[in-house]
């Protein structure tokens, strides 16, 4: 499985050489340029949806367990 998205997203190409040479207050401004929306591959989309389902199901179980433990 590749974790890489498409190589370029159109906007926000960070100048890493410049950022490395900046002072902390300057880096905040330089690094705050917005990046384009991440375009995930089909495999990564499937992983993200699987994680969403995992969180919803397991978190619901944890919340139910907690409610039952304090009410019983």
């Amino acid at each position, binding site marked *: 499985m590749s974790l890489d998205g498409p190589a370029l997203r159109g906007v926000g190409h960070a100048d890493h050489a410049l950022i490395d040479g900046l002072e902390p207050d300057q880096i905040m401004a330089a690094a705050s340029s917005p990046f384009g929306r991440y375009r995930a591959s089909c495999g990564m989309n499937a992983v993200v949806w699987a994680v969403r389902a995992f969180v919803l199901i*397991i978190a619901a179980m944890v919340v139910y367990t907690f409610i039952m433990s304090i009410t019983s």
Partner: protein
Amino acid sequence: MLSFQQSEAADEGMTPRDIRQGRIDTAVGTVLAALAGGAIVVAAAPLFTHGIDTSALGSGTGFAEAMHPVVGRPAAALFVVGLIEAGAVAMLTISASTAYAVGEVAAGAGHSFNPSLRQAPAFHAANIGLAAMAAGIVLIPGTPLLSITLNANLLATVLMPPALLFILIMANDPELMGARVNRRSTNVVAIAVAVLVTLAGSAAAIVAFVGIFR
């Protein structure tokens, strides 16, 4: 802790030149946290060997009181000191990361501890308010502290895989990371850790859930 660390690094104004120091900081903190966690497990082990019903102990202090006749006063006192230290660290990091989260989603709330209370009232109110609210809940008589602690930690573990996934995506984005993009070996370790956390969280949640119906 993940969100606290990234926000705290930004708040301190760390730059790429500080990455080495940040890695040392993280490694030392990780080892100390693992040692502390292991020490708590070892310290509480005599309770199980003496057949004490730990489910009847209401909170951390209940464990310390039960340990007193088994391991002696100094060891039980040390256990209490460890609990207080762990609670203090957790209170500081959780309230601070909540304030950072408020600062990230609420425009103008502020996202740093550097501005004064007057300059960033919403940020500081979130930080202090959460700690005060937690203290208020703890002081309510009869509050099921052990259940709250266990389930809050379990929920945090269950919510960790999405955060780990997003960090991995960002760390593998060459446009974002430049020359510091993740190496293959780093990805192997990181994915293994994410899978392990996911499995451990799932197992604990399922065991607790099934236990209700027994």
